[in-house]
C-alpha cells in the first residue's frame, strides 16, 4: 500500500506534470495565461491577490528549504534542529495564513462578483479544491503538530523520502513513519501537480524574469514568425 501511495503515485503524478507541461506548451500557447479578472473587479483583488501570491511564494521557498536541504547540512553549519524548527514554523505559519487569508478573499470575490463568477470554469473549481485542500492540509498539519508536546521532525522522514524520488531510489518506508497529516498533504500535493499543467496554474512558469534584462522595445521581423499557411490547422 505504501509502495503504491508513495512510490507509484508520485512517479505517475510527476510524469504527468512534466509531460503535461511540454504538451500544453506545444499545443496551447494561446491558452497559456493568467486569465486575469481584474477588469471586472479590482478593490478586493488588490488586497487578496498580492497577499495570496506573496504568501505562496514564501511557502514555496520554505518547502524548497525544508525538503531539498538535508538536516545534516544545516546542523553542519551550526543551526540546531530546535532553532531551525522554530524559524520554519514561525515563518511558515505566517506565510501559510497570509496565503489562506488571501485565497479566502479571492474565493469570496470569485463567488460574489457577478462577472468573475460567470467567468469561472469547472477547471478553475477543481483547481481551487485541490490547491486550497493542499494548503489547508499542510497548514493544519503544522499547526496541530506543534500543539502536541513533541512535533514530528519531518526532515528525517518526509524530506529524505521526497529526495529519494528524484534519485530514483524511492524509499516509501521513510514516509510510512510520518504522521497521517503529512501523508495526506503530500498526496494532495501530488494530485495538484498532476492537475497543474491542465489548469490556469501554468502561469507560474511564465514568471517574466526576462523583463529585468531585455531591452525595453522589442523589434521583430516578419521573418521571425514561423511559417504557417492559411490551410494549416494551428497545432
Amino acid at each position: 500500500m505504501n509502495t503504491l501511495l508513495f512510490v507509484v503515485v508520485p512517479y505517475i503524478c510527476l510524469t504527468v506534470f512534466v509531460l503535461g507541461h511540454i504538451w500544453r506548451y506545444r499545443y496551447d500557447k494561446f491558452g497559456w495565461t493568467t486569465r486575469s479578472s481584474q477588469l471586472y473587479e479590482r478593490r478586493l483583488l488588490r488586497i487578496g491577490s498580492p497577499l495570496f501570491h506573496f504568501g505562496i511564494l514564501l511557502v514555496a521557498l520554505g518547502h524548497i528549504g525544508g525538503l531539498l536541504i538535508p538536516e545534516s547540512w544545516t546542523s553542519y553549519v551550526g543551526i540546531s534542529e530546535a532553532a531551525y524548527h522554530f524559524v520554519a514554523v514561525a515563518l511558515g505559519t505566517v506565510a501559510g495564513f497570509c496565503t489562506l487569508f488571501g485565497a479566502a478573499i479571492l474565493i469570496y470575490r470569485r463567488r460574489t462578483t457577478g462577472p468573475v463568477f460567470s467567468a469561472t470554469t469547472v477547471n478553475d473549481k477543481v483547481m481551487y479544491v485541490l490547491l486550497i485542500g493542499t494548503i489547508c492540509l499542510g497548514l493544519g498539519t503544522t499547526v496541530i503538530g506543534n500543539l502536541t508536546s513533541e512535533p514530528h521532525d519531518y526532515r528525517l522522514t518526509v524530506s529524505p523520502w521526497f529526495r529519494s524520488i528524484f534519485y530514483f531510489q524511492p524509499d516509501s518506508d521513510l514516509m510510512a513513519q510520518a504522521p497521517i497529516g503529512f501523508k495526506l498533504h503530500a498526496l494532495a500535493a501530488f494530485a495538484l501537480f498532476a492537475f497543474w499543467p491542465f489548469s490556469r496554474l501554468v502561469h507560474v512558469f511564465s514568471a517574466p524574469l526576462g523583463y529585468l534584462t531585455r531591452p525595453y522595445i522589442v523589434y521583430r521581423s516578419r521573418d521571425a514568425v514561423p511559417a504557417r499557411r492559411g490551410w494549416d490547422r494551428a497545432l
Partner: protein
Amino acid sequence: MRVMAQMAMVMNLDKCIGCHTCSVTCKQAWTNRSGVEYVWFNNVETRPGQGYPRRYEDQETWRGGWELNRRGKLKLKGGGRFKKLLTIFANPKLPAIQDYYEPWTYDYETLTNAPLQEHTPVARPKSLLTGKDMKVQWSANWDDDLGGSIDHGDKDVLLKGIADKVKFEFEQTFMFYLPRICEHCLNPSCAASCPSGAIYKRAEDGIVLVDQDRCRGWRMCVSGCPYKKVYFNHRTGKAEKCTFCFPRIEVGIPTVCSETCVGRLRYIGLMLYDADAVLAAASVTGDHDLYEAQRKVFLDPADPAVAAEAERAGIPRDWIEAAQRSPVYALINKYKVALPLHPEYRTMPMVWYIPPLSPVVDVVRDTGYDAEDRGNLFAAIEALRIPVDYLAQLFTAGDPAPVDAVLRKLAAMRSYMRDLNMGRDADDSIPAAVGMTGEQIYDMYRLLALAKYDERYVIPPAHAEQAHSLEELATSCSLDYEGGPGMGGSGPFGESSGGPQPIAVENFQMLKDRQTSDSLSGRVNLLNWDGRGRPDGLFPPRREDQ
C-alpha cells in the same frame, strides 16, 4: 544613421463628420467577438469630451507613457522594471470595465416568445458579463456631439487649464471630432511595459503588434499606453490592439478604417526615420520641443544620401519610392500642417492630425462676415484664443504657436483657392503671409481636397522575399462565437485555447485584385443579367471546352 521605415497615418480633422463608420467597420472586422465587446481599436471622440475610456488623458491618474526622471533620462511614468514585477499580482493602474462601459445586448427573444399580454413586451438590456438585467449608463461614445455635457462637460481633462467662466461659452462655439486608433509609436511604452516581451514593433513597417502566443495577460501594457489603445480580452486573458490592418497593408490596400472613411480624411504612407535619433528626440527637456524634435527624426526620402542609406539598411527600392510619394511625409514635413497627438507622452506617436479650421470658419460665418476672407480668418484665429489653446493641448503639449501656424496655412489656402476658383487673379501676398508659395498652396490644396485613392494611400506591398510567409496571428475567426459556424471557439482550457485561427491572407490578396482590376473578370453582376446567354464566369466551363 539607422534608417527604418514606418507605416503612418494622417487624419484631416476638418473633414470628419463624426459618423463613426470607421469605428463600426473596424469593429466588424476585428473585435466582433466575445471578450472584446467593449474594445474599439478605432473610436471617434467628440471634443471637448472625456474620450474613451473616460478621462484617459489624465496621466496623473493612469501613469501611462514616459517621463524624464531627475537626471533627465527617459523612464516609464508607471514605474520601472522592478516596480512592474512587484505590482504584477494586482496592477494598480488598470482601468476597470466601468471606465470603459459594461457591454450589453438586448433580450430580443422575449419579443417573439412572450405570451399574449396587455402591454407590448420589451427587449431588456442584459449584461454581456453576467447575463443579468442591467441599466445602460455609459458607452464608447455616450457624450457624442456633446450629449450630456451639462452634467459632465467639465470632466474633459484638457479643460483643466481653461478658466471656468469661459467653459460654457466654449462648448457652445467649438466642437470637433477626433478619430483615434493605435499610434504605432516609434517609442511605444506599451511594448516597454510588457513583462513577457510579447508586444513588438515590426522591423519592416513599424506596426506594433501583440504576439498572442507570448502574451501572458499581465495587463501592464494597458496601463503603459497613455492613449489606452491596448485592450484586455477578458475571455481569452490576452491583450489585443489595433493591428494597422497588417494583413491588408501587406498586400498594399489601406486599413479598414481608411477604406471606409466617408469623408476620405485619412492618408496612409511610409515615413523613413533615423532609429538612432528616436531616444534623444523623446528625451528633449521641454515638452514644447517634442513636436519639432520628432519632426527632425524623420528623414527626407528625396535626399539621395537618405535613399542610399535606406537601401544599405535593406529597405527595398519600391519602398523608398513609396516613401518619396508618401502623402504623410508631405503633410508632416513638407507643408507642416499635421501635428502629433499628445507629444508630451513622449512615445513618438505616428498617427498625426491636421487640426480643424472649420470651427473657426463657422464662427466667422455666424457673425455675418465673409468666412473665406483671409483678413477675417486670421483675425478670428487671433481672437479665438481658447480653441487654439485647446488644440495646442491636444497636439503640441500646449504650445499655441505651431497650431496657430497650421490654422493660418489652412485659412490662407481657403482664401487663395477661392480667388482661383472665382476666376480672379491669384493674390500672392496670401501664401507669402504664411511663408509658402502659390504653387505649394496649390499642391497642398490638391492633396487635401482632390487626392484620389492612390494618392491618399501610398502603400507598397510587403515583399515575399522578405517574409517566407505572411504573418497570421492576432485574431481568430469571426465566426467562432458559441454555436457559430466557425465553432473553433472553446478549447479544453477555456475560451479560445489551442492555436489562434489564421487569417486567410489569400482572401486579402483576392480582395485587392477585385478592387483594383478594371474588369469584372470572374464575377458576374446578376442584377445586370437578363437571363439569356451564358456570361463568362457565371457557370464553370463546360467539359468540351476544357
